C-alpha cells in the first residue's frame, strides 16, 4: 500500500503568520509517525495542511497520484451531534469514496458492521449519535476511519478526554493499521505513549526541532529547545527572507538535532543558525 509524503520547504500559516515554518522531510509509506510539541507548535496545522484545510504559504507537499486517499480525524470534530443520525449512518459516511452519492448503502453495510465490531460498538448501529459518550463517539469515528480504508491516516490528538481502556483499544487499532502498511501520523501529547507505540517522531515548535527515531528525538535537550521557542505570534514580524530552495545542501549538523534513519537523507531537518 502506498502512502508516502514528501515535504519541501513547507510553510503553513494563518494570515501570513507561519504556524509551520520551513519544514523539510519525507514520510515513508507505512511510517508510524508521532507529532509532538507544545500547544501552538503547529501539529494541528501540519495535519490540516496535509488535507488541504490550511493554505500553503510556501514550499510544497508532494504525493504521488496513485498514493491513495488520506483519512483525517480532526482534534475537535465539527460534527453536529444534535443532528438526528444513527451511529451506522455516521460510520457509513466512510463509504463515500466507494459509493458516492447514489449507490445503495446496503452494499457497504457489512463493512460498517465489521468496523463497529472492531471498535467494540456492536449493537450500537441504531443509536442516535447524540446519545454516545465521548469515548464511544471517538470509537465510532475510528470505525469510520476503518471504513474509509485510506493509505494515509491523520489523527489530531485522538485521545484527549478518553479513558485508559478506550485509549488501549484505539492504540491497538493504530498498530493494526501500521501492520497493514498504512501510513499513520498522530499529533500527541503523552510522551510515554509516543515512546511506547510510535517508531518515529517529529518534534515541532513552529520550527522543526528534530525528526527521526523516537528515542533519538525525544531527548531532554530537544524537548527543552521546543519549550523555549516562542509561541507568540509577532504582529510586526518582518517578512521571512529565508530561502528554502537550497535547503538540501547545507545541514547545520552542529545542532545535533537531526537523525537520519532507515533511509539516509530522507528525514532531515534543516535549521538556519539565525533568522
Amino acid at each position: 500500500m502506498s502512502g508516502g509524503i514528501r515535504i519541501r520547504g513547507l510553510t503553513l500559516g494563518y494570515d501570513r503568520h507561519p504556524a509551520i515554518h520551513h519544514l523539510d522531510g519525507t514520510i515513508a509509506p507505512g511510517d508510524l509517525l508521532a507529532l509532538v510539541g507544545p500547544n501552538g507548535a503547529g501539529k494541528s496545522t501540519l495535519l490540516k495542511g496535509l488535507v488541504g484545510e490550511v493554505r500553503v504559504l510556501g514550499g510544497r507537499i508532494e504525493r504521488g497520484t496513485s498514493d491513495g486517499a488520506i483519512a483525517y480525524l480532526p482534534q475537535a470534530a465539527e460534527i453536529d451531534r444534535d443532528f438526528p443520525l444513527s451511529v451506522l449512518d455516521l460510520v457509513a459516511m466512510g463509504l463515500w469514496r466507494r459509493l458516492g452519492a447514489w449507490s445503495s448503502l446496503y452494499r457497504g453495510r457489512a463493512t460498517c458492521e465489521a468496523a463497529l465490531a472492531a471498535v467494540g460498538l456492536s449493537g450500537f448501529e441504531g443509536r442516535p449519535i447524540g446519545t454516545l459518550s465521548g469515548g464511544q463517539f471517538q470509537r465510532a469515528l475510528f470505525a469510520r476511519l476503518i471504513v474509509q480504508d485510506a493509505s494515509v491516516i491523520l489523527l489530531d490528538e485522538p485521545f484527549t478526554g478518553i479513558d485508559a481502556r478506550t485509549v488501549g483499544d484505539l492504540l491497538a487499532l493504530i498498530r493494526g493499521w501500521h501492520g497493514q502498511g498504512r501510513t499513520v501520523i498522530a499529533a500527541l501529547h503523552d510522551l510515554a505513549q509516543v515512546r511506547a507505540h510510535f517508531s518515529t517522531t517529529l518534534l515541532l515548535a513552529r520550527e522543526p526541532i528534530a525528526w527521526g527515531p523516537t528515542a533519538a528525538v525525544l531527548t531532554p535537550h530537544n524537548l527543552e529547545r521546543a519549550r523555549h521557542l516562542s509561541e507568540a505570534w509577532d504582529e510586526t514580524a518582518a517578512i521571512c527572507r529565508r530561502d528554502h530552495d537550497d535547503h538540501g545542501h547545507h545541514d547545520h549538523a552542529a545542532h545535533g538535532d537531526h537523525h537520519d534513519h532507515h533511509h539516509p537523507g530522507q528525514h532531515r531537518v534543516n535549521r538556519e543558525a539565525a533568522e
Partner: protein
Amino acid sequence: MIDALVTGLVGPYEFGFMRRALVGCLALSLSAPPLGVFLMLRRMSLMSEAMSHAILPGAAAGFLVAGLSLPAMTLGGLVAGLAVALLAGFVTRSTMLKEDASLAAFYLIALAGGVFLVSLRGSQVDLLHILFGSVLALDDPALWLMGGVSTVTLVALALLYRPLVMECVDPLYLRTVSRAGGPVHYAFLALVVMNLVGGFQALGTLLAVGLMLLPAITARFWASDLSGLIPVSMLVSVLASAIGLTVSYNAEIRLPTGPAIVLAAGALYILSMLVGPRGGMLQRLVRRRHLEA
C-alpha cells in the same frame, strides 16, 4: 349537523379559484417543508426569512418593468434571491465572515432596495400584494410554476440527499473526501430561493417562509430522525393549507387567506409543542420513573 360540516368542508371547493388555491398550496406543501427540515437542523431557520426579503427587489424590479406580471416578477425574484444566496455563500467561503453575518448584510441591502423600487412606482396596494400574496388569484401559469418548483425540488433533494446530510453533520469530513460540499450547499440555497419564489405567488414574500419552517419545526415534536421528520412536515403543511383555506372561506368576517394558512400551521405548531411525544410540554410535565439501564 353533518350536512353543515360536509358543506363547510367541501363547499368551498365547488369554486375553481378555491380548488386552484388548494392545488397550489399542496404542491408547495410537498417541497417547502423538507427544505425547512434541513434549515432547522442546520440552525439556519432564520436564514430563509432573510432569503424571503432578498426576493423583494427582484420582484419589484419585474413589477417596475412589466407591472403586475407573473413571469417578470418571478424571474426578478428568482434572480435576486439566487444572487443574494450565491453572494452570501461566496463571501462566507472566501472571507472570515460567518454565513449569518454575510447573509444579513446582503438581505438588508436587498430589502431596502426592494422597498425603494416599489415606492418609485406603484401604490401601497401593490406593495401589500407583493408582501402578502394572493392565493385566491392563482392563474394557470402560477400553478404550473408551483408544480414545477415542487417537482424540481423533490427530484433535486433525492439526488442531493446523501451529500446534503453529510454537509449538515460533518462539513469538514465532506471537504476532505469530496468537492461536492460547495456545490451541494449552493444547490440547496437555490432550492430554498425557488420555493420562496413559488410560495410568494400564493402567500407573498413574508409568509412563504411560514409554510417552509412552521411544518418543519412542528415535525420535531413528532419524529426524531430524517425519515420521520420529512413526511411529518409535509403532512403538517398539507393540513395547514387545507385548514387555512377552509376556515378563511367559511368565516363570517373576511379573513385573508395567506395569513390564515400560516396561522393554521402556527396552531398546529402550538398544539404539537403542547402534546407532541418528542419533548412536548405535557410529556415533560409527567415525570415517569427512570429505567434500570
